[in-house]
């Protein structure tokens, strides 16, 4: 177990370094814009005095590394500044919009693994056969369009032509669920309203599937590729020489070892859904971080941009740390490594 803790510790340290790097990167990008951010934020009708006040508040007159120092100091207090767009603390804005996005991404992530992985296994096991070809074409198709294209297609087919799913939103207007966690799956249950839970679940199917589709294809392709490589290993031949059933060989001898490299990449794909969620949210009018993100970017609301990107990157890194831990759990080489960090 200590080996796993060591992996956790090492990953957390690198993640922190990377996160600081990300903050510097975003901060640098945010400060290289031509023109005075305060002027841009306040619009053309602002008075010189107003601009000056805001500039001082934003420490815009200090050298850039001093500005970054202020930024870090505030960040360590959990203060991402005030959004110039909503006039509220950025953290409050994010807290309001993030749960809806996370809920969508989590459901899509589960879909990606639950559908993509088995498809990849089938494909590798029946390599060269009809099943393999069908799955390969399917997964190649799914990775060939961005989430919003799938969103449009799914919406047309399953909400308009065959109206089984709702067109947009997170939950029907007739339900009013008090927001406790922001996660409707949890809030509806907290409110004890099973019908609302069902309604919310109904709403999330299409957006999550649209978001998940290319991930499903990616996971299937990756699993297949890794398993085919594993199928060439000597221990597969050894397993066959013992006459184990092919299904058992696929599961225990080909899949298990293949998961180790595949999971890392699947983790990356899962995390990049955080970005792609923006596309799907727009089509399905999903009240997540997307509308906020696009709005603040269009308005050049620096604090909000930096905050949004940082939070998404942090979520991305956290997902990757979790994936690395899972890999460590299934990989005996890491679990039993004698090496110290």
């Amino acid at each position, binding site marked *: 177990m200590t080996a796993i803790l060591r992996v956790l510790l090492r990953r957390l340290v*690198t993640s922190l*370094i*990377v*996160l600081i*790097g*990300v903050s510097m*990167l*975003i901060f640098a*990008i*945010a400060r*290289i*814009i031509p023109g005075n951010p305060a002027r841009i934020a306040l619009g053309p009708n602002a008075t010189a005095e107003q601009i000056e006040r805001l500039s001082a508040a934003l420490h815009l007159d200090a050298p850039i590394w001093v500005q970054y120092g202020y930024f870090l100091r505030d960040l360590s207090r959990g203060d991402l500044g005030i959004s110039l767009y909503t006039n509220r603390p950025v953290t409050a804005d994010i807290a309001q919009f993030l749960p809806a996005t996370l809920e969508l991404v989590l459901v899509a992530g589960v879909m990606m693994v639950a559908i993509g992985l088995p498809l990849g296994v089938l494909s590798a096991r029946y390599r060269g056969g009809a099943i393999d*070809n069908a799955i*390969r*074409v399917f997964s*190649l*198709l799914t*990775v*060939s*369009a*961005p*989430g*919003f*294209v799938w969103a*449009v*297609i799914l*919406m*047309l087919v399953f909400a*308009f*032509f065959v109206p089984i799913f709702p067109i947009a939103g997170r939950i029907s207007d007739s339900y009013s669920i008090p927001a406790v966690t922001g996660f409707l799956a949890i809030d509806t249950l907290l409110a004890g309203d099973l019908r609302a839970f069902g309604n919310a679940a109904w709403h999330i199917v299409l957006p999550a599937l649209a978001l998940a589709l290319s991930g499903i294809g990616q996971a299937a392709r*990756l699993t297949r*590729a890794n398993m085919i490589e594993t199928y060439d290993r000597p221990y597969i031949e050894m397993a066959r020489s013992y006459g184990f059933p092919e299904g058992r060989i696929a599961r225990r001898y080909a899949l298990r070892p293949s998961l180790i490299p595949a999971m890392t*990449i699947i983790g*990356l794909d899962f*995390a*990049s*859904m*955080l*970005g*792609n969620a*923006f*596309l799907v949210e*727009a*089509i399905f009018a999903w009240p997540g971080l997307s509308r906020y*993100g*696009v709005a*603040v*970017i*269009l308005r*050049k609301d*620096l604090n909000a*941009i930096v905050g*949004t*990107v940082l939070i*998404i*990157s942090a979520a*991305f*890194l956290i997902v*990757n740390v979790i994936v690395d831990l899972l890999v460590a759990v299934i990989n005996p080489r890491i679990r039993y490594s004698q090496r110290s960090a």
Partner: protein
Amino acid sequence: MKRTLFILLSNPLSLLGVILVALVVLCAIFANVIAPFPSHAGAVVDFVNFNKPPQWPSIMGTDLVGRDIFSRILFAYRISLVLGVVVLSIAVPVGVVIGLAAGYLGGWIEYCLMRLTDVFLSVPPLVLAMSIMGVLEPTLLNGMLAVTAMWWPWYTRVVYNITRSEREEGYVLAAEVIGAGPAHVMFREILPNCVPAIVTKMTLDLGFVILIVSSLSFLGLGVQPPTPDLGSMVAEGARYLPDSWWLTVFPALAILVAVFGFNLVGDALREILGAEQ
């Protein structure tokens, strides 16, 4: 080379890919010849024929200001491909050199370069491009800049991984023992062994650049009107679903067809050239 081409054309799926890619590239090159209304690539308004379903001569219908959707798709291909080529011709050399250096030289150079790569990889690609586009003016040039900035780390990763394993090969040791310098080993010995993987990835990426540019445009952060772009066409049309379905469906299919074609070819190349993932 000959063998590669032969295998590519003898498999029905990769043949389909080659055909699709050829079609898309031809459409892009000869857009002004093929398009029934070349002028519709710009800011043209035709209030007589606006929002028309598919009919002759507008086989894919017209948009809200009466422009021929088919013509606009052709020109959108042209811009996407140019963008893809430009992005890759900057991102690939940068990513490859960094990957080679980190993988071969090792030590603190490796540590710094790979952490830098991690930083870029830790921001979801779309978010990174969005934030760059957000603070810069949303022009085509800045769009390319943003997409390039998020693209090179993927090549670094691919080349870095190959370099790490090739570094252990006997031929690298042989070159070092002879006294060849790091530049020779990296570019003349190791790089040729990365080429199959790079070519494969570039083929796939030409498709993905189309995806990402259309995604940015979809959010209003990419190619700006009146320049045609598949992503913004889908975004505009989505508001008029399902009645004016042609506004979205054709540009969406155009994305799918082009990217699918590049993916089919890239996939086949990966199999033929034995390139790693």
